[in-house]
């Protein structure tokens, strides 16, 4: 068995010269320290993304776009296709877990200041992927064309339309018209299965390439220790196997969620019916949604909603650019203020999300 694989490797190596790469990979190590556990979350996010791609492709085989058939095709998948219920529920659950894992990954990188030089671009591509993930979530949510999704999309695109000057054109572009219709569904489908995956893959490639090239980021304390004192483990096979173990458990967790907490379908969207009471977006948008509710209608001379959106956009931009304005970390110094800012953001998001959920 082993001899066969060795012969295969040799055959490929003769043509592609893998040995340099293999040697390089063999040297890859992972620092072992108090915060090592956070290293897993990048991998988990990747794993969940792969699950989304696989289950997404499977769903594509039976999903029918268009407002007459979208809902019924999901009903069909849930009830008539063998294991359709499993594939669909895993896809819906993974969407949420993917965003959660990405958030944990992002915050752990932030608090470790791993974005500092030379890894600024890794951070930027990561943030862009995160925004794309939110786009995935928003566009995918509409695809079953059920009541909840229809109105959530209406509200969400309404908010986009509030932005001054460019808001209206953006809204019309997103909706494929003035209102949310079958045209919106077609667009969102295109975004969800073609546009976003394409762009995401590009950023993912860059992100992973950079991580391989630059190696794992070490915490600042680490850099102060001597080379001998630093504990590490080889990526191949140790860390990889641990990664795989973790992924194994996550996959089983998804199956358990799919069986005991199947994702609901609800009622088919009816454009002529009034919105159900208490409509709210998915949890990852809730903190923004709830914040907008708290901002008064007019603040000084500005429209409250516009102000809120602009504030969030600004906050997002600043967050994305943190490698460039956090001078201390790029110098290798501890930065208390970064920690405080990060803590504030995390707490704000958690508290507002909880309020938005129970309100």
């Amino acid at each position, binding site marked *: 068995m*082993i001899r066969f*694989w*060795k012969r295969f*490797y040799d055959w490929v190596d003769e043509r592609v010269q893998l*040995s340099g790469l*293999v040697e390089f*990979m*063999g040297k890859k190590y992972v620092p072992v320290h108090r915060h090592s556990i956070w290293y897993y979350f990048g991998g988990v996010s990747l794993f969940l993304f792969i699950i989304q791609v696989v289950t997404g492709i499977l769903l594509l085989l039976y999903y029918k776009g268009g407002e007459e058939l979208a809902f019924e095709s999901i*009903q069909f998948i*849930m*009830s008539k296709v063998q294991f359709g*219920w*499993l594939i669909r529920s895993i896809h819906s659950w993974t969407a949420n877990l993917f965003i959660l894992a990405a958030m944990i990954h992002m915050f752990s990188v932030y608090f470790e200041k791993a974005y500092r030089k030379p890894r600024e671009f890794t951070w930027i591509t990561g943030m862009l992927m995160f925004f794309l993930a939110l786009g995935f979530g928003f566009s995918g949510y509409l695809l079953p064309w059920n009541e909840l999704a229809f109105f959530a999309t209406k509200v969400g695109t309404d908010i986009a339309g509030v932005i001054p000057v460019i808001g209206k054109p953006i809204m019309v572009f997103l909706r494929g018209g003035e209102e949310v219709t079958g045209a919106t569904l077609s667009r969102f489908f295109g975004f969800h299965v073609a546009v976003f995956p394409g762009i995401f893959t590009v950023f993912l490639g860059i992100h992973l390439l950079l991580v391989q090239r630059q190696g794992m980021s070490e915490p600042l304390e680490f850099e102060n220790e001597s080379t001998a004192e630093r504990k590490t*483990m*080889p990526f*191949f*096979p*140790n860390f990889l*196997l*641990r990664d*795989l*173990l973790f992924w*194994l*458990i996550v*996959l*089983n967790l998804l*199956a*358990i969620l799919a*069986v005991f907490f*199947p994702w609901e*379908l609800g009622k088919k969207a009816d454009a002529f019916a009034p919105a159900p009471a208490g409509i709210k977006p998915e949890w990852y948008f809730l903190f923004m949604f709830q914040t907008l509710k708290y901002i008064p209608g007019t603040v000084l001379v500005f429209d409250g909603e516009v102000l809120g959106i602009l504030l969030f956009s600004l906050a997002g931009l600043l967050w994305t650019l943190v490698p460039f304005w956090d001078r201390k970390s790029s110098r290798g110094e501890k930065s208390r203020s970064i920690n405080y800012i990060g803590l504030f953001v995390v707490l704000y998001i958690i508290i507002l999300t909880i309020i938005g959920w129970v309100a």
Partner: protein
Amino acid sequence: MNRLVPKIAYTLAIGFCFAVRAPADDKCLTCHQSLGDKASELFMRDVHHTRGVTCAGCHGGDAKSEEMEQAMSKGAGFIGVPKGDGISKACAECHSNPERMRRYGSKLPTNQLEQLQASVHGNLATSGKEHIARCTTCHNAHGIVSVKDRASPVFPLNVVKTCTKCHADAAFMRTYNPSLPVDQLEKYRTSVHGSRNAKGDPKVAECASCHGSHDIRSAKDVKSAVFASNLPSTCSTCHSSAEYMKEYTIPTDQFEKFSKSVHGVALLRKHDLAAPACNACHGNHGATPPGVASISKVCGSCHALNADLFSSSPHKKAFDERNLPECETCHGNHEIIVATNKLLGVSSEAVCSRCHGETQNPKGYATARTMRALIDSLEVDEKRAATLVEEAEQKGMEISEAKYKLRDARQARLESRTMVHAFDEERFREVVSKGMDVASFVSDEATRALDEYVFRRIGLGIATLAMSVLAVSLYVFIRRLERRQSMGGKMSSSLPHRKP
């Protein structure tokens, strides 16, 4: 002076002749009688006259004066011949005044005008100058007697004539309500009430008995005594009184029975105005509703499908031969209860066994038994399918399509209840098997959903077991690997690498 003396002498002479009859004060009457006035002739028999009310009591003026100018002066309150609503006003001066009525020792009610004004007759007449009816319309003007007096136009035997004065006049009624029939009298005379009334029985119902007298409202008015949901209690005022109905041969428990029946519950408790009140089967004025030959055939006017099936069934001839009423024989008349499966078949509660026995009319016996068995099994199948669907739904399985199909099973059961009336086993079986097919399809779907529910959990268990085995062995492998690494020091990469 010269003209006056003969007048006075003449008056005194006439007055003297009639002094015995006329109360001393009513000079108006004395004078007018001498003139041969029809009104005063009638007034002699009037109850007002007997009670001491003078002409001035209604017409105003001075009844004590013999002088015409004085007696009929405006100053004395003379109003002449009141017209239109003025008449009702004049009557109401006393009759709506409880104190005044008490002074005359009367126990009459005093709300008649109020009631009249609120009634349908209180609407404006087509002339626009007055309301449709006033007191004298029905009571006449001068010969008014008690309603208990045979001479009264509102005595039970005379009411019909009084009402039909207007209500049988097609040209007149057309100016008010062209859709109101004007043949009530003809129809009424065909009924028991009408024929007995014609023969002189004052106890049977006439117009006022049901419609009221002063407070007559349109039958569509919810306050009317003949409004659908009020009608049964109106009829039962007489028909449920054993005392009142003593000399008649009919029972007095119809209202009681009706209230408990399907129709009664629907009409009286659920306020379903489509349900029949007494008049729907017995007719309004006639003996039966228009177009219905006999009351035993009236059910078909609503239950048309059942009646059709029955008419082409073998029971029709059999019942006709034995002079049995069609629907009533099995379903009753007033006490019609909800028709359940129990009515069908050969058990003790079933009606079929009243005529069909194992040895007597055995073919019908067998058919009845079979039909009951079929409908019972359909009901059982349908219930089972519904239970299974509910269970699958509870478990969160997607079963909306099967649930939707279940309607068809229920529909088949209802249609079969109607099809019973053809008393044809083949046709019955056809309808029932349609339902049973649907029920079994739904049961299968639901069972499949329940099996799937279990399968998912078992499958998950197996997958989890496989995963756990793999996870544990992987963990052990990692542990071992790292132990070897820390002991051996050399890399033990699982990747093949060239030997240097």
